[in-house]
């Protein structure tokens, strides 16, 4: 025979203030726990969506980012002619040779310095990355020193209005438009003509090369051909999506490990809060428990009633925490990504798996906090309990 659920519910309600305080503790822990997972997830999502399975990236071997990679023009031309590289209708190779550097700009408001990625692209690059659309203004003209800014740059940094000029390399670059990368890393980049940027930066070598595969399955063949060819064996070919996933790994691991270690430690605090509440609940209701036992409810029923009370408390706390965390999806943060050493804007992304993990985490807090008090309740002697008033 089980104790009715209404009993559990009403006893939580009877001690509203204590219930609310305990719930608040669990909710705060659940909030931080979920936010950390959402942040790591948001970062990964931003980077993974930046890449596409149809494209491959070529970098120098052992270069972990585009910033330190170098590809000579001759080698780039050899790679372009590989049969696995798709061909555009006009007969050109569907590939973009790019240069990638970072420059410093000051943030609006705080004057903090940010590392901004500047990418010189070939005309084919826009078709290789169809998710990037023009937001306002116009695209830059090839052959001129004009640039287009990702929308996050435009929003967060000083002196980034259309028509203004930014000085870097050997020249002044005129801002002619803003682009929308639809939440990808390109929102935090500046784009211009690669053939203008290379001489301006005094770098006669490309940083990286992106090409469209004739079909996603052609990747293995392309990788084998390019890495085996003695003229291009210095290079390493990666799927674009894989490449961007790697670029976010260091940072998202960092957020996850640090965030979770701290959350788990201070969840012990909240668990203890729940334990105090449940012990008090048992102590206050000794007579009630004795009465229930006298009425015929067995020890197991009493144990489960108290355990359910604590689980209910923690689940509601977990849900409240998740509710607060879901508000975080409106927040976007912009910081230096360790993997690329450049500014990246990303948000908190909620996913079903995070909801489940957070609720399980809250549940564990509830069970851990409620088990010992529930055992004490179940072990009370009927006569002693009834007499204790």
């Amino acid at each position, binding site marked *: 025979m089980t104790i009715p659920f209404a009993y559990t519910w009403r006893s939580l309600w009877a001690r509203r203030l204590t219930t609310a305080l305990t719930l608040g*503790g669990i909710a705060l822990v659940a909030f931080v726990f979920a936010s950390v997972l959402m942040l790591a997830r948001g970062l990964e999502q931003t980077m993974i969506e930046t890449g596409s399975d149809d494209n491959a990236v070529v970098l120098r071997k052992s270069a972990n980012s585009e*910033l330190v990679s170098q590809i000579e023009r001759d080698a780039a031309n050899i790679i372009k002619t590989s049969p696995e590289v798709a061909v555009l209708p006009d007969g050109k190779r569907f590939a973009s040779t790019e240069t990638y550097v970072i420059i410093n700009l000051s943030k609006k408001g705080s004057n903090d310095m940010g590392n901004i990625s500047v990418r010189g692209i070939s005309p084919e690059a826009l078709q290789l990355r169809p998710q990037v659309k023009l937001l306002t203004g116009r695209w830059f003209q090839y052959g001129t020193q004009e640039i287009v800014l990702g929308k996050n740059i435009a929003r967060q940094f000083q002196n980034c209005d259309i028509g203004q000029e930014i000085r870097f390399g050997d020249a002044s670059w005129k801002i002619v438009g803003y682009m929308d990368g639809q939440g990808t890393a390109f929102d935090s980049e500046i784009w211009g003509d690669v053939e203008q940027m290379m001489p301006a930066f005094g770098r006669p070598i490309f940083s990286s090369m992106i090409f469209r595969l004739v079909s996603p399955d052609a990747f293995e063949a392309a990788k084998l051909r390019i890495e085996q060819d003695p003229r291009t064996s210095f290079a390493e070919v990666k799927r674009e999506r894989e490449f961007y996933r790697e670029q976010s790994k260091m940072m998202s691991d960092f957020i996850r490990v640090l965030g979770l270690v701290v959350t788990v*430690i201070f969840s012990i605090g909240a668990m203890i809060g729940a334990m105090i509440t449940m012990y008090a609940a048992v102590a206050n209701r000794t007579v009630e428990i004795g009465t229930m036992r006298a009425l015929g409810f067995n020890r197991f029923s009493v144990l489960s009633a108290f355990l359910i009370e604590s689980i209910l408390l923690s689940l509601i706390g977990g849900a409240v925490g998740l509710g607060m965390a879901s508000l975080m999806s409106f927040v976007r943060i912009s910081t230096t990504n360790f993997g690329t050493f450049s500014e990246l804007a990303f948000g908190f992304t909620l996913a079903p798996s995070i909801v489940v993990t957070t609720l399980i985490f809250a549940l564990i807090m509830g069970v851990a906090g409620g088990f010992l008090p529930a055992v004490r309740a179940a072990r009370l002697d009927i006569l002693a309990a009834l007499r204790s008033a």
Partner: protein
Amino acid sequence: MFVLKLVLKNALRHKLRTFLTILGIAIAVMSFGFLRTIVTAWSYGVEASAANRMITRHSVSFIFPLPYAYRDQIARVPGVNLVSYANWFQGSYKDPADFKNFFPRMAVDPETYFEIYPEFVLPPEQLATFKRERNSCVVGQKIAREHGLKIGDVMTIEGDIYPGRWDFVIRGIYRGKDASADETQMFFHWNYLDERIKELQPTREGFIGWYVLRVQNPAEMSSVARAVDQMYLNSRAGTKTETEKEFQQGFVSMSSAIIRSLEVVSFIIIGIILLVLANTIVMASRERTKEFAVLKTIGFDSIHIIGLIGGESLLIAGIGGLIGLALTFPVAGAFAGMFPTFFPVFKVEVITVLLAATVAALAGVIAALFPTIRTLRTSIAEGLRAIG
């Protein structure tokens, strides 16, 4: 005196509850202290920077190199009494995915670098060998310990910014002068780098990463900065000269969003301390409604009631806070032991201790506020009537 005794007796009335509350507060204070330590460790470079050093880097970003030829010109600027330089080399050592293999590797000027950074202490005979041998390198004590390196060992690094395989012979192991010096770096000859890159990529010959300037008088820093930057205003490679502190601050502010979120989380922990403590105090004072009414009846003042509730709250918060603070040190030590290269310097600062103690005390006061007000407002008759 009587009130103090009663506070103690009250606190011990529910031993388990008091114990749990103290434990909860101790853990929360410890995580607070730990998080604050991370925040301070992040900006250790700012604290460690010397008052007489300045950094000259490329005006666009420090990833762009500066010509070696600037060296003598900068040395002639009035107020500058020593110029050294360094170049970020990076490369991957062993498995690059493992974070412990990620530590600064720089090509430096062997003649001046250890002179301009006196906080890196290298025995004179080791320094002499290092200066003499072209392919030698010096590593920090922490790195040597972490990777089991000793003098004479060869360190092999796969280049990325500077392609190729690079072998360096360890000829020195430096230690920090005090706890704030970074013992996780590796230095080798810039000349060696320059020579090899000349063969490989001739256009990159003769460039260094940044200059380190020592000035005679810290008051002259702004005039030195102006004089240096003015010199290269219209050249291909413009410069930006700033104090070492500002330079380091620039790195810290790159991660300002992360630091800010760590700070937010540390404030949430304060919330949790408060909730746990408030819960206990609310419970205790509700149970004692009748007793307080009796105390009032026999003539105790409001001040005594305040002392009773507040005293118990502060006592629990104080003990919990003390234990939490005591725990912070071994936990921070264990973390630093597990990830020796993650933060070059990781120690609990005095300000962290003070902050954590303040937080615990404040929580003690705030937690007692609500129950005290309620008890004071309850009339004697009402209190005596109260059940449970």
